[in-house]
């Protein structure tokens, strides 16, 4: 490989790596906890137009399914498990979430502003 080609390909790889790192750092990580048969907080305010990573901690002794139809996410979380739900840039608005395995659990809302 010629030196110029090698230099260009190295630069391209570096640019991709920097872009990915920037995107990961830009992700705002928030937390939702499930305990005593409810989610806390029930309303989570997040910035709109920004990628998000939401940690869902199941601190209870029951298996739950963290679900949101609007966000098109459903994930089983076993007792003591923590999962991370990655979300794309959200438009301003409210996105409800709930435990699909226990319909008596009050639903929560992610509010993007």
């Amino acid at each position: 490989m010629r030196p110029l080609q090698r230099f260009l390909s190295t630069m391209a790889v570096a640019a991709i790596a920097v872009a990915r790192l920037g995107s990961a750092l830009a992700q705002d990580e928030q937390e939702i906890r499930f305990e005593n048969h409810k989610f806390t907080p029930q309303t989570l305010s997040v910035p709109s137009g920004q990628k998000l990573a939401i940690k869902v901690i199941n601190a209870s002794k029951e298996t739950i399914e963290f679900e949101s139809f609007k966000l098109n996410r459903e994930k089983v979380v076993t007792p003591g498990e923590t999962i991370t739900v990655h979300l794309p840039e959200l438009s301003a608005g409210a996105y409800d979430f709930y435990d699909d395995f226990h319909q008596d659990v009050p639903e929560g809302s992610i509010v993007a502003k």
Partner: protein
Amino acid sequence: MRRNLQRGVLLSLLMVLLVAIQLAPSGVTNPPSKGEVSAPPEIQDTLRRSCYDCHSNHTHWPWYGQVAPFSWAVARDIELGRRQLNFSEWGDYYPVTRRRKLQWMERALRQEEMPPLSYRLIHPSSRLTSQDRAQLERWIETELVSATASPASKAGD
């Protein structure tokens, strides 16, 4: 000679293990219905043919569903399927829950996610034709309209 003996012992142990694990039950049964979904006969037929094995209390256990370790995997899938959507507990769902289930069903139908490929391969008769899909979608739309019209009952209200 010695290698053959070792192989024989290993195979025997494996056979004993396979027989022994048959004693561990999968733990999933067909409990009584808590209120079966009400739908026109053609929709009922489709649901029974394509969905009921995993999403109702009327599971037809396949032969491999009786043999461990496959029975454990089948039982796990059925347990999860029933928790996510159970047509035998339809009458027990809050209106808001019913609406959510219908919305997910509609999405799964449009994205052709259900029945899953692994199930369709083993149960070819479960495949949904475009006519089945269209009928189901129409039924879901009708149900969604009536679910929206019924009084809101929301967890936590």
